[in-house]
């Protein structure tokens, strides 16, 4: 029998606010332990939390970008559990009235992964384990998080990858999170179950906690799928449990049993008041949203004729896409700009992080000027490429490498004269060409190109040469 894979994801993203969710302590990664702390975020008795407005705004932004309905009335709840990473023995989260509901992320296949809800909550502190002892750092305690929960709509590890990458991209575009999985600012809990192909009844699920790499997440899903199928085929039942993925063995292992939902004893936090929003406020926030990557992708492919593969590479990184926007504005052929980015700039910046930052010496304006010269027929593509390499190394303008004189271009008459000269000086090659050695033309072409100092258009010159030889 074959089995369908059913996956739902709960993704935590840390927000890029200046301060924590309930106090004015700095929200920053990598500080000395317990230096971004105050009585509120270490949970001392008698302190009162006060919700950061920006967290609410970011949650609304995320909800709008993920096509959610924003709840006009929402509030914070307490989730109770005792663990050293949680100084108050409860986490302030949202359970009964999350701020956003019922959205979706559309995959490239057109399939929609439905978003069940998005809620705001505080992050826990960080535990460092050293030879059995535990060291606690509460800098992360109280850092604002959004938890984005999907419906179990994902049916392959590849769809899971695409969903997470899309989510990452959208969150970065709207500026609410940097979604750095390796630094923990984006983490996924993965719910996996299997069911007989086509069946409507969901199987028993297991939950893999805290995945912090997309590659490992897809491996963990594939592993769990195989494990569930093997368990069922052997006549046993899948046990509902919380798992940890072990990278070294590419397998999962059971975690110490966690509480059931009812054990969290959720209740409305009496320290925090309701959040009441109105449509006008939400519209104001909608107006601050930038153009989303899915839109840009459609524009690049449909309007500019950029191949999907290339468009995806540009849209993936906001800085690259913004660079492209600035450089291509007003040009007849924006595709040329994307070719320079992918063909030449990306050759030197290869890692995700580098592309994310996109720190290069050339400005969008400088690339714009270069492409303009090509469009105006003042330089050919060959020369442009060579010049762009030099520009990338030095950060200098195109005019520093190509003089006004060079850019005057070359008239058709001049080209014809040069071609005739070339053919007469390379009679042997011309004969070879006529006798069927098509490559021989390249030698004559090289002669002309050299004479034009690279200004001529190689295709045009080759045509002219063929014409002359055939006369």
């Amino acid at each position: 029998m074959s089995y369908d894979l059913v996956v739902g994801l709960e993704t935590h993203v840390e927000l890029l606010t200046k301060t924590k969710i309930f106090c004015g302590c700095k929200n920053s990664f990598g500080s000395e332990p317990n230096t971004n702390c105050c009585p509120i975020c270490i949970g001392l008795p008698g302190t009162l939390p006060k919700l950061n407005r920006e967290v609410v705004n970011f949650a609304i932004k995320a909800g709008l970008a993920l096509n959610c309905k924003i709840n006009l009335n929402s509030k914070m709840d307490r989730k109770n559990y005792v663990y050293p990473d949680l100084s108050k023995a409860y986490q302030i989260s949202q359970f009964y009235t999350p701020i956003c509901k019922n959205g979706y992320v559309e995959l490239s296949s057109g399939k929609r992964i439905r978003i069940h809800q998005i809620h705001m909550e505080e992050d826990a502190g960080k535990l460092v384990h050293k030879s059995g002892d535990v060291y606690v750092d509460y800098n992360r305690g109280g850092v604002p998080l959004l938890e984005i929960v999907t419906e179990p709509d994902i049916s392959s590890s590849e769809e899971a990858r695409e969903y997470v990458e899309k989510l990452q991209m959208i969150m970065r575009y709207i500026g609410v999170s940097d979604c750095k999985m390796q630094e923990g600012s984006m983490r996924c809990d993965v719910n996996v179950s299997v069911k007989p192909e086509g069946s409507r009844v969901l199987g028993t699920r297991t939950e893999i906690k805290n995945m912090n790499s997309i590659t490992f997440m897809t491996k963990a899903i594939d592993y769990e799928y195989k494990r569930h199928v093997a368990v069922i085929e052997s006549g046993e039942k899948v046990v509902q449990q919380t798992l940890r993925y072990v990278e070294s063995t590419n397998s999962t292992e059971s975690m110490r049993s966690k509480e059931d939902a009812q054990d969290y004893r959720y209740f409305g936090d009496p320290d925090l008041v309701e959040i009441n929003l109105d449509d006008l406020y939400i519209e104001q926030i909608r107006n601050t949203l930038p153009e989303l990557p899915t839109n840009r992708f459609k524009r690049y492919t449909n309007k500019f004729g950029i191949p999907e593969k290339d468009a995806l590479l540009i849209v993936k990184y906001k800085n690259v896409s913004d660079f492209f926007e600035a450089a291509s504005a007003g040009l007849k052929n924006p595709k040329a700009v994307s070719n320079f980015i992918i063909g030449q700039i990306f050759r030197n910046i290869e890692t995700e992080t580098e592309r994310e930052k996109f720190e290069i010496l050339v400005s969008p304006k400088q690339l714009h000027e270069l492409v303009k010269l090509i469009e105006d027929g003042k330089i050919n593509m060959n020369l442009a490429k060579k010049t762009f390499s030099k520009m990338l190394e030095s950060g200098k303008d195109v005019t520093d490498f190509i003089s006004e004189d060079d850019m005057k271009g070359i008239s058709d008459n001049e080209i014809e004269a040069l071609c005739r000269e070339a053919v007469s000086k390379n009679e042997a090659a011309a004969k070879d060409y006529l006798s069927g050695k098509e490559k021989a033309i390249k030698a004559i072409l090289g002669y002309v190109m050299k004479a034009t100092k690279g200004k001529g258009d190689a295709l045009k010159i080759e045509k002219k040469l063929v014409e002359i030889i055939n006369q």
Partner: protein
Amino acid sequence: MISRDEMLNLANLSKLYLSEDEIEDAMKEMDGMIDFANQIKEMSPNSHETPNINGLSNALRDDEVIESYPQNKILENVNGGKDGYFYIKKYN
């Protein structure tokens, strides 16, 4: 009436360790507390909803940094901690 197992589960969730003779007492006390909570439940039909007694909403704070406490102040109640951390020694 709360069962013995429910009492032990509750104690476990709160990391309380009850001796055999404490369990019986705790069950009685818990029953009293639940009765009391049930009275409140009668006032508010949805037990999870805290009624908005004070009528306040949107007590929001601007996203502005307020200086944190120095590390030694934060660790003052735990004898200064260890290496800048709250320290929990291995037990068992």
